[in-house]
């Protein structure tokens, strides 16, 4: 009898051990969509019964933002600004918000973020893909036009000097992430994650309550991951020298993140900067600013302002993690890493 009971218990254990997938109830069903916009690949995911409506509206919002923020689209705010020949232009609230963020981070970083470098980017061919190294004399001629303090903002009215041109590439995708999160929330979505060309922004947690896992690209081998980080309700935005670059006739690599002081690719010790924070637009702007500032200045900037976490990868391969994110970082290969604290000694 005893063994009969044992056998019955074993059988019921087998029957109770479902090895199929748990039935997903409607409340955390996934809806996902792919989108090619802003010159990149975007993937939007949302969970819950309003997920589809939220993702559909987000797609429409992204398409509209792309139109407003494009440098080349002749109907855009940016096109109007860059072709106003010194006249005042009334811009949308979105453009105004982005200009405000750029001005704030520009100031915080001592001018390391500069959105008026467009004429210099063009001289390098980064605007067309027809790359070449410009002459020093060309850069010297163009740099005086590239000064964000020349942008006069008065509410939604913006004025640029005739030769000055701006582009919002350093902030636009981060701002777009914020806009999508806002739409998700309006639809009552509490769990979702988006990737806008590798820049990730997450709402809440995964439906099961655990943190999201976000990949950080290895700047020395962009086809693989340096590691992953665990985040909840955060933007994770990276600027790296591997994203857009060309190799010159001299065999040197020239990348698209330019130092406003020299008009040349910023080479102040960093090859990639990942910023983790609440506001996508600020994280995006910061990732560019910190990249330009370089290792020491970036650490000083973080200690001075706080409000975000960061992962710096130096040109010699060291990974610096601020103390708020260090425990959530899982390396995917052998890395030499160091945790940065708020104290100078850290």
């Amino acid at each position, binding site marked *: 009898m005893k063994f*009969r009971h044992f056998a019955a218990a074993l059988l019921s254990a087998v029957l109770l051990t479902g090895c199929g997938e748990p039935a997903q109830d409607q409340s955390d069903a996934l809806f996902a969509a792919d989108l090619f916009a802003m010159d990149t690949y975007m993937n939007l995911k949302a969970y819950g019964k309003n997920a589809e409506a939220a993702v559909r509206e987000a797609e429409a919002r992204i398409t509209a933002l792309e139109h407003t923020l494009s440098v080349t689209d002749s109907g855009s705010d940016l096109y109007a600004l860059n072709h106003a020949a010194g006249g005042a232009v009334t811009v949308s609230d979105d453009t105004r918000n982005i200009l405000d963020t750029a001005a704030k981070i520009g100031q915080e970083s001592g001018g390391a973020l500069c959105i008026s470098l467009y004429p210099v980017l063009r001289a390098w061919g980064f605007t067309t893909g027809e790359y070449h190294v410009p002459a020093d004399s060309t850069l010297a001629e163009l740099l005086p036009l590239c000064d964000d303090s020349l942008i006069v903002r008065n509410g939604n009215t913006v004025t640029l000097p005739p030769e000055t041109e701006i582009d919002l590439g350093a902030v636009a995708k981060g701002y777009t992430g914020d806009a999508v999160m806002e739409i998700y929330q309006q639809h009552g979505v509490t769990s979702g994650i988006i990737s806008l060309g590798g820049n990730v922004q997450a709402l809440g947690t995964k439906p099961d309550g655990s943190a999201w*896992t976000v990949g950080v690209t290895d700047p020395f081998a962009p086809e693989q991951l340096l590691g992953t980080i665990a985040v909840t309700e955060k933007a994770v935005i990276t600027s790296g020298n591997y994203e857009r670059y060309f190799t010159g006739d001299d065999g040197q690599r020239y990348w698209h993140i330019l130092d406003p002081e020299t008009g040349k690719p910023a080479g102040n010790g960093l090859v990639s900067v990942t910023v983790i924070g609440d506001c996508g637009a600020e994280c995006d702007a910061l990732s560019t600013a910190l990249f330009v500032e370089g290792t020491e200045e970036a650490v000083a900037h973080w200690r001075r302002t706080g409000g975000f976490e960061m992962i710096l990868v130096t040109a010699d391969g060291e990974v610096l993690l601020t103390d708020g994110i260090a425990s959530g970082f899982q390396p995917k290969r052998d890395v030499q890493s160091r945790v940065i604290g708020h104290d100078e000694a850290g």
Partner: protein
Amino acid sequence: MTKQAKIIAAAAAAVFLIAVILSVYILRKTPENRIEIVQDGKLLYTFNLNTAENQSIRIPAADGGYNSVVIEDGTVRVETADCPDQTCVRMGTLKSEHLPLVCLPHKLIVRFAEEGAA
């Protein structure tokens, strides 16, 4: 213990063991190895890399170009393409759910499938 009870117990134990091994295998393998090939929002193919035969798929693009996707020994990669940037080819084999193979000019994505995706 009767002989019958012994047989039932042994049979149940065997079934239990098989069930445990199978569920571990399925739960471990499935999420990592089902891939999808998507072009401009349209799902073209799905494969289970654990069982898919080695093959080469030529995927025509809207601009007249192509990407050639190769499945080989449980891996997938874009072997050749006539896009200008060749980013999809340089990505090599698909390694992580966080790093899909993307060809921007041809709007092609090769990635691990998300469970429960709509």
